[in-house]
């Protein structure tokens, strides 16, 4: 733990708190800057969707009372922050009396499993591809083949998801269309269940992996080229070390460091993209829950979920930041 100084840890935790506070404040303030309020918007949406709303005035005033929208804005803000800190997101409007926190907790494992696995896999594969692209002894054939894996880079994950769904579920019928596991298997650690989960999660995971892989490969290639010019590489070569060892311990080991920083920065965007992937595949994670909330104009649920998404991403970045000095001991030099 030599790299972890108190100052560094405090700085990172401060950054974490700032990020969560900032995110929570934006989702509190900006909706209140636009004309109208959530209740009116909700009623308006119901009317445009053809729902017959009687006594709209009464409904609006009751809801205003329940939302606490009649209080002074500062009191609302303090209440809001207090609820956020105590993890109390209240009740869902559309699925009353379900609590928002419980609903999120129920769908969270699926999202975490899907995201964690696919992000790690894409990071590992992408960096390996990038490193091999920049490494001289890599066979020519491989160097020509590898860039093909990068074609998906600029395409959003959900689009790849739609295409995968069409090809592998609709046309070839290899994978199921929706859900997280088949309804006829029993929950638990048995092979039928695990196999079913893998089969259902494969396409969603593939669509995230395919699009995020290229970004790591491109970055890694650039870093490897820079590393290649360093003196210690030439020295290692002159010392007669095996090429594989030079590649792995001298090249990749050093080039990977900025990639980990980039991983932290990209995490927010990747989490956002996976919301849409879950919608496309009707994968019952947090993203799909958010979609249901939007369809039902369930404002407490939307706000609750988004707060947890912000919290989750910031927490992941914090963990990444705190493990970083263990991988890159140079951080400890900050002490002096």
């Amino acid at each position, binding site marked *: 733990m030599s790299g972890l100084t108190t100052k560094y840890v405090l700085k990172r935790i401060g950054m974490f708190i*700032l990020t969560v506070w900032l*995110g929570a404040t*934006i989702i509190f303030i900006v909706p209140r800057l636009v004309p109208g309020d959530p209740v009116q918007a909700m009623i*308006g949406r119901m009317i445009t969707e053809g729902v017959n709303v009687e006594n709209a005035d009464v409904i609006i005033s009751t809801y205003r009372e329940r939302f606490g929208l009649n209080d002074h804005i500062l009191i609302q803000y303090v209440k809001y922050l207090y609820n956020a800190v105590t993890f109390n997101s209240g009740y869902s409007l559309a699925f009353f009396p379900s609590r928002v926190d419980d609903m999120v907790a129920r769908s969270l494992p699926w999202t975490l499993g899907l995201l964690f696995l696919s992000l790690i896999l894409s990071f590992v594969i992408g960096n390996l591809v990038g490193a091999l692209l920049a490494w*001289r002894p890599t066979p020519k054939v491989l160097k020509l083949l590898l860039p093909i894996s990068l074609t998906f880079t600029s395409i959003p994950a959900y689009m790849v998801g739609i295409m995968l769904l069409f090809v592998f579920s*609709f046309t070839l019928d290899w994978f199921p269309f929706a859900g997280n596991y088949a309804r006829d298997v029993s929950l638990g650690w048995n092979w039928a269940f695990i196999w079913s989960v893998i089969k259902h999660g494969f396409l969603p995971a593939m669509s995230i992996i395919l699009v995020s892989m290229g970004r790591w490969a491109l970055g890694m290639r650039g*870093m490897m080229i820079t590393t290649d010019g360093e003196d210690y590489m030439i020295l290692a070569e002159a010392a007669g070390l095996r090429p594989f060892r030079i590649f792995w311990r001298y090249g990749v080991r050093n080039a990977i460091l900025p990639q980990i920083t980039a991983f932290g920065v990209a995490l*927010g965007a990747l989490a956002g993209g996976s919301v849409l992937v879950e919608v496309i595949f009707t994968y019952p994670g947090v993203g799909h829950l958010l979609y249901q909330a939007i369809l039902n104009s369930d404002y407490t649920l939307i706000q609750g979920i*988004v707060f947890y998404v912000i919290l989750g991403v910031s927490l992941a970045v914090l963990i990444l930041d705190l493990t970083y000095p263990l991988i890159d001991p140079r951080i400890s030099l900050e002490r002096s």
Partner: protein
Amino acid sequence: VTEQTTTKKNSKNRSPKSPWLNFKLLLGLGVLIMAISIEYLAPFFWDTDMAKVGSAPTNMVPGWIEADKELGFKDPSAEHPLGTESNGRDMLALVLVATPRSLKVGLIAASIGILVGTVLGFATGFLGGWLDNVVRVLTDAWMTIPGLAVLIVIASYIEELNLQAMALVIALFSWPGPTRVIRAQVLSMRERGYVQMSRLAGAGVLEIMFLEMMPNLLPYLAATFTGGVSGAILAATGLEILGLGPTRLPTLGMTISNALRSSAILRGMWWWWGFPIIMLIIIFISLFLMTIGLDEIANPRLRGAR
């Protein structure tokens, strides 16, 4: 991302022509100019009013395939070469109307982002001090916030989001990237020889900023801009797919959203979501090519990388 490039050009082949005559940049730019001009050219050769609901027969397959009558599809006709969807919209008209519109959202949002980013990046990188610290920390924190999630909250509160409003909302998250890149560039340029020289020669702050630094910043600005347009379109289509975009006028994301809600994938109506996706992919790849091209202009050293 600007530091990274992907050419395989050998340094021997480098000709002394202007670096701005970059093939990838020009190709991407050409395609995008074409996509934007569709808005003005399309009415001359196609009836774009057919993008409205109920202006064409429903569920018609594209011109070159056979209709599966069991699934309720109609035989193709020359009037609707790309087929029609379930609400009676002509797919060709829909794509022609929606493409420039989707591109516009991205252009507006990214323009705001780059403007704010340039001002903040210049001010903080050049002047430094406490303002620099505040903006830097704020930018770092803002970048960690998952933008799409926050945009979803905002968009869901707004009753009827029009194109401009959506671009404005998206711009909330398109400034931190440019701010960071430009600040870093200004910081490194400030200490370079030519800036020091002009400072010694008695040039004012504004003169150094606009006459000395700005020309060198241009490729970075442009690369950040194209990246920003791509990100903004991604966010816009994301919101639209969740049903939170403008509902009156068709955009590419809204068309895909309609297709998904009508389970077009399960019904095998690939042309409904396929054509908008192809257009978006063309836009994204063009922007990606431009970003790579501009990176090569900005980092000549990486141009000759092995």
